[in-house]
């Protein structure tokens, strides 16, 4: 690599940065060490309350049985599986932003990758709860899901997408967790060096005794790049495998080959929208405006717009193929989605995922944080209803008219759904309070380099 080229003053002078490398630690870690804005505690209390509500609902369901959930023939997969797919989707953008954009050397990722990775870990953790909630007797869940033989020495069916999903999600959670934590190690050492007493001891343990020697960085950088290379196909595979839970069945509306790319695009759309939804208020709460710049948030919105276009295209193709195939049951389901008793959810999905994001073509809208925030929240609403729409409309009316039914979520399901949002936000806010929200060592890499040559040039300009 030509280091001379990368250290020339002209190449590093960047007027967009008003802060210097030496401002990063005090600016970012100030929020961790000092008391945050009171709104932080309000948000944390609200999230904890919602999580508690969901926990109580789940406990009641465990005590009194699955009857409380209201799930019954023909809709056995209701809101719980909707939530599962939604949260896995949210978890998608984190590793996309950290791994894929790292390989593409997209610099804007360096200020938001930490929050996106944390979001991934907590979202997949939340998603992982739903198969447990859905199976009812949670204490037997591990026995049903993992390849453990039953009393007849019968192994799991390795040709079932459900076991593929167990492997995919657990691998994704593990790799995302490792990727996130690996990035945190140098920053935890920075926190250790700024802390005293018990905090210093705890951060010292968590940072594994990192000192930032060249040897450590050398192996770290190689490991990070390899992990990014491993995580990249994993990102694409996870939601493809989740989509096979549906596409491998012969249920009308599910049995379609466009599902894997369509699910992946949808997951990235919801993930990017959630990153934006999380970063904007936290940026304000912890005064991180100098480090998470408008340009970075705008780049995230551009990615949201791109994936929204792909999702809109996928919706159109799905409809076209349903009509063009001449498959009667397939086309009937699609007509039911658009004009049947669940059409409200369908149109919410279309407007939130395809129509409202079109506003992001305007730079003025992308630069207007409040408007962009509303669009991103609407995208998340739309993406939740997309999964609800796919699951419910295909299950209520299948091949046999005698088994047709109607579905609406029970109070238990709604409480657990609210609880899942509370659980997710609670962990995210706890993370924000105790860990650096922005990757210190990676942010410093995209800021102007601390060069003697550029310092001299600057002092000459100041004196003249």
């Amino acid at each position, binding site marked *: 690599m030509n280091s001379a080229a990368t250290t020339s003053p002209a190449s590093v002078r960047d007027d967009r940065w008003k802060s210097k490398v030496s401002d990063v*630690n005090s600016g970012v870690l100030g929020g961790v060490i000092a008391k945050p804005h009171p709104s932080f505690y309000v948000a944390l209390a609200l999230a904890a309350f919602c999580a508690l509500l969901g926990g109580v609902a789940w406990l009641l369901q465990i005590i009194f049985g699955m009857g409380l959930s209201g799930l019954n023939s023909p809709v056995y997969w209701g809101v719980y599986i909707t939530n599962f797919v939604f949260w896995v989707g949210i978890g998608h953008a984190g590793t996309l932003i950290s791994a894929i954009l790292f390989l593409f050397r997209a610099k804007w990722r360096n200020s938001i990758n930490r929050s996106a990775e944390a979001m991934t870990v907590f979202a997949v953790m939340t998603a992982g709860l739903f198969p447990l909630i859905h199976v009812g007797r949670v204490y037997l869940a591990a026995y049903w899901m993992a390849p453990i*033989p039953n009393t007849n020495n019968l192994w799991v069916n390795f*040709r079932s997408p459900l076991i*593929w999903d167990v492997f995919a999600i657990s691998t994704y959670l593990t790799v995302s967790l490792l*990727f996130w934590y690996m990035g945190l190690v140098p920053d935890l050492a920075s926190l250790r060096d*700024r802390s005293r007493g018990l905090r210093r001891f705890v951060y010292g343990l968590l940072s594994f*005794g990192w000192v930032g020697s060249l040897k*450590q*960085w050398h192996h770290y950088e190689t490991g990070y790049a390899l992990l990014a290379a491993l995580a990249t196909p994993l990102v694409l595979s996870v939601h493809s495998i989740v989509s096979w839970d549906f596409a491998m069945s012969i249920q009308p509306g599910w049995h379609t080959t466009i599902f894997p790319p369509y699910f992946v695009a949808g997951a990235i759309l919801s993930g990017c929208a959630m990153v934006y939804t999380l970063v904007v208020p936290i940026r304000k709460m912890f005064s991180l405006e100098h480090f998470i710049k408008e340009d970075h948030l705008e780049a995230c919105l551009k990615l949201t717009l791109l994936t929204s276009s792909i999702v809109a295209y996928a919706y159109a193709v799905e409809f076209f193929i349903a009509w063009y195939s001449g498959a009667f049951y397939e086309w009937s389901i699609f007509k039911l989605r658009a004009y049947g008793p669940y059409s409200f959810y369908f149109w919410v999905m279309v407007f939130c995922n395809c129509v409202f994001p079109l506003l992001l073509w305007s730079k003025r809208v992308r630069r207007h944080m409040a408007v962009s925030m509303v669009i991103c929240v609407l995208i998340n609403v739309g993406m939740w209803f997309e999964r609800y729409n796919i699951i419910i409309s295909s299950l209520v009316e299948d091949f046999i008219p005698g088994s047709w039914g109607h579905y609406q979520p029970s109070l238990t399901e709604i409480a657990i759904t609210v609880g899942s949002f509370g659980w997710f936000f609670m962990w995210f806010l706890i993370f924000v309070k105790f860990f650096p929200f922005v990757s210190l060592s990676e942010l410093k890499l995209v800021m102007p380099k601390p060069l003697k040559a550029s*310092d001299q040039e600057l002092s000459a300009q100041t004196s003249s």
Partner: protein
Amino acid sequence: MQRQESGVLALFKHLDEFATAARLVQNKSGFDGHQVYSYASYHELMDVAESAYGPSPVRWLTLMGSLVGCSVGFLMPTLMDYDWPLVVGGKTAGLNSAIPNVIFMFELFVLFGALATIFGMLWFGGLANPRARIFDPRLTDDHFAIYVPGVLMDSEQSRYLRSLGALELKAV
């Protein structure tokens, strides 16, 4: 407890000066066992590391882990399938139904590869090290440093480091 060796720590603030200094002291006599510290992985410094340590062996561990994972991903479902053959969709068990095993091969390829990578990064980087010596809190903030063990403040090495642009020298 093992007594830690004393030496001199030279602190730098500018990357260009520091990268040059790190390169120059690499093979210079009197700097045996020196250590270079940075708060971020600048390319300039990674070039110095590459010339000092060669390509990182972490990549071999990643490869090994991935290949082991891939093999386990194939063997586990196949052997379990032979242990109790399940006929699904009219297909007989084992190798005749091996195509879905690609999923397990892929997932475990990634999982074992990632675990091996983390292990390699920790092992070769000398982590976890509860007795790590933290010379100066500024090394994880905005300063670079070169530590030379077994030398004094008033030595040839210290003077050389100062001539290379060290802003501060301290005995540690």
